[in-house]
């Protein structure tokens, strides 16, 4: 799925981001990696992590909104 070409370049979906993260982790774990590369990989990982976290946050906001609504209706 995540390897399909029609995927948006800009921001990968949460699932694609997670796959990439897994791949980075794999790569880091192997001995062959340069510290500079490591740093790059880590940077990328951090980027992706951020991205995912953002996505979760966004979802969380939605959840909260529903909860808010639910609570409102209880209070209201």
């Amino acid at each position: 799925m995540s390897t399909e070409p029609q995927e948006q370049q800009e921001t990968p979906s949460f699932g694609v981001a997670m796959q990439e993260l897994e791949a980075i982790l794999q790569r880091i774990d192997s001995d062959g990696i340069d510290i500079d590369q490591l740093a790059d990989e880590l940077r990328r990982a951090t980027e992706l992590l951020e991205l995912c976290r953002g996505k979760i946050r966004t979802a969380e906001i939605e959840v909260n909104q529903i909860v808010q609504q639910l609570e409102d209706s209880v209070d209201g």
Partner: protein
Amino acid sequence: MLGHEATYSISELTEEIREVLGDAFGGVWVVGEVQRVRSSQRGHLYFELVEKGRGDRIVGKIDAVIWRTDYVRVRRELAANDQEVVEGQQIRCWGHVDFYGPAGRLQLIVRNVDPLFSLGLLEQRRRATLAGLAKAGLLERNRQLELSEVPLELGLITSAGSAAYHDFLTGLTDSGFGFRVCLAHAAMQGAEAERQVVLALRDLVAYSRSPGCRLDAIVLIRGGGSRSDLAAFDSRRISEAIARCALPVLTGLGHEIDESIADRVSHTAFKTPTKVAEFLVEQVALAESSITACGEALRRLAHVRLQQAEMKLRRCERLAPVARLRLQTAALALNDRLQLTHRIGRQRLTESRRKILELSTRLQASGPRFIDRHRDRPGRLAERCVGVATGRLREATAVLDGISRLCAELAPEKVLERGFSMTRNGAGAIIREPSQVRSGESITTTLAGGSIESRVEKT
């Protein structure tokens, strides 16, 4: 030998005949029927004795006489047996044959008459007559005729002016009833009796058939008399005439002991003429009382019928109350229907109102209930969504955290913190071997706490 023979004078001859006959018929029994009876002034009884053959033809006849001296005795002996020497009677007598010279006449001098012979003969004849009548079916014939309930019209056969006649008429007259008597005279004894009685019967029956002369019965009566006097009423001729008579014949023949054949074949036999009269009077009296009773019954019944009719009618007079009751009942029923109609009408309205109210109430409840049932459904679903989503997010966050931690551990900064350092040449490349630098080249060592700029002095 003419002239030499002994020659009788008449008297000599008659005398000799007398002697011979006297010797020959000195004492004989003779049977014959008495005819032409006549008594002489001197008291002798002269008669003829005859014998009849076929068809009453006389086949033998002899003159007979009973001298006065004998006759007194004979008569006494016969009377003791209720008999006498009468015309037509068969007698058995004893005597001798005598020839009476002066008259040249033969006669039987009767000295005795057998009373028992006549009696037996009579009885014999009586029985024969009865048997003949019975055979001809005549004994009960007259008795079967119906005697009128009111025997007022009577034919009377008797000797006019006799005691019987007077007794009978007196009996009727004393009753005061309107008897009508048609007399037919007949000798009731002697040789003519039989014929006259039969003729009288015939005449009365003929009379009864003439218009307006209907007779209810014929009364045949006579006063008392000797048994021999009654002989006619034992005769077949009279008996048959009575039996065959078209009218009921009532007899009153006036003897107490024996019943004659006439009595036997008559409708009803009475002892005496008076008894006949009494019977007739009694019959009429009975009829009169039944007439009176009938009149009373009529009167009573007519009134009963009227009363019944009136009672029946009176029962029908309750018409008016019954009709009124009908009307009252109808009015009551109507009123009942009226009230029922109103009640039911109102009831229907009330029921409808109640139904509508019930429906209204149910509707009022059903709307809010419906909402109540559905109110929480979206919320519950949303809550489940929240739960599931929160779980999913928490899971994702945990995965991210793990990765984040791993990254952090692998980060160069972490190695530096343990005391390692990293040195780069001026180009920024990491220096792994001393040969990679020349003396005097400035290098940068990165430490955990920062970086140090230094110069290579020697390699």
